[in-house]
């Protein structure tokens, strides 16, 4: 007789795969894949937080370590991208990055403003 797979282990497995996909998308700069993973990530974290009992602890431990590595990779690649993207966006927007008093100034969103009146 086959036992049902451990739901927590299955969720952890999917979390690993999702985080690894996010990492790959951060390397290839694939925005579509990144956007697709947002909902999956949300569902998985909700599932993992629901407090099921863990049956296969050894498998879970190994998956959690794999997920932590994948998460670290996402953060590293995200930080690398943001360092370039932030500066490039400010340059594209043509906005001063430092104000008259020397304070850092965030770039304002580009695009034309539309005034709507009822």
């Amino acid at each position: 007789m086959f036992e049902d797979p451990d739901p927590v282990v299955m969720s952890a497995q999917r979390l690993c795969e999702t985080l690894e996909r996010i990492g790959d998308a951060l390397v290839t700069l694939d925005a579509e894949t990144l956007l697709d993973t947002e909902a999956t990530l949300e569902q998985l974290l909700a599932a993992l937080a629901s407090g099921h009992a863990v049956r296969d602890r050894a498998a879970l431990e190994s998956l959690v370590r794999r997920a932590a590595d994948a998460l670290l990779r996402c953060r590293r690649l995200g930080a690398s991208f943001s360092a370039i993207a932030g500066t490039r966006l400010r340059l594209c927007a043509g906005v001063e990055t430092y104000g008259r008093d020397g304070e850092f100034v965030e770039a304002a969103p580009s695009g034309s403003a539309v005034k709507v009146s009822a």
Partner: protein
Amino acid sequence: MSDLFTLLNRATRALDAQRFGLDVAGQNIANVNTPGYVRRSLILQDVAPPDQQSAGGGVDAVAVVASRAPLVEARLRFEQPAASREQAKAESLSVVEAGLGDPGSSIDAELAQFYNTYGALAQNPTSGPARQQVVLAGQSLSRAFNDMSARFDEAQRTADADIRSTVTQVNALAAQLADVNRQISDTESSNTQGLIDQQTAIIQEIGKLANVGYITRNDGSVDLSIGNGRALVIGQNAYALQLSSSSGTGFATITATGGTPTDVTHEITGGRVAGLVDVRDTLLPSYRNQLDQLAYSVSTDVNTLTTSGYDLNGNAGLAFFTPPAAVSGAARLLTVNPAVAANNALVVASATTTSGNNDIARAVQSLQDTAMTGTTTRPVDGWGSLVYSVGTDAAAAKQSQTAHEEVTVQLQNLRDQVSGVSLDEEAAMLMKFQRAYEANARFFQIASDTLDTLLSLAGHS
């Protein structure tokens, strides 16, 4: 109104402009594998109408521009030296790791065999064959330590030879850069794009070998510095790094010659040179020290016991191993005492002058399960600790190399995606990607907390 001649002239000009566009595209395709080549784009401009009755004068090709992304290039110049440094470490350490042998068939096995032969001697303290087995196992253990020490020596010499060869490459590239700088200074500004491509490729290559600082001059030439701001290339002059052999070890030291000659061997923190210097001067000496400490402790503990006992003839016991003068060099010099090796009756098994006593043989056998003097580890654990150090360092270098390489690929992708598009397109692409990343980044902290909770559930409940 345009006359027929004007119309034909306009059509010819348009055809010329489009043909020029095809030339540029052909040039891009032809150079797809050229190191440092940056994609060219043709800038077209409409020709103003000669009068109000005319729609316009057609189109002209006004410039060919190279799609450079200086910010991304600068980040790449930062990442590449780090990736190369870790790569050099990972390559060197993988060789060292392989040389340690498999668990259970290296020095750990020799240690077990040596102590067990004393166990066999304890069963029959007067047995000539058992005494000879002890001598043979001691010699085998000594050779294993000698060989391992020689392997570390060889790994250091290999790293040193690699450093010398890499520095020679740095010098050749620096000389090339100085020459390209000269050509850029001598060339009309409109014809320098190819030279700037070469300049970029050379700087990238140097960055893989050693991290350098760079400053672009107004005329387009680039100055490079190495270490703590020592001149490597200033305009059209290259200042070659000098290699000399240090008096103690004979290993190469690297001297920057721009300005006051300065030893920059340990000032270089990135690129292949830095990785190799780290392996040669920090990691391998640390492993050798662990090996020496192990050889010293094993031999000293055995000698302490054998010199407190008696040989087969009831004479005061000799040291089994030639006593090491110091920890340093203990593994390289470890040998069985030549007198004992020549006459197995001098092997000590007895704690008394009575030849049938086996107290010392049993005490030596039990050393394998006892912490070595001055340590908290058993001999086999001392070896395990060394193997673990090498394995951990090799894995960390490999992991770090992969991480830096991934960021490098990301930056190259970023450069390729943004170069040649308009600022608006670039901004749209970056914002879309950044929004997508930030959407996920919101969940990263929750993911991290969840993983911590799961890890504690898996590991401790």
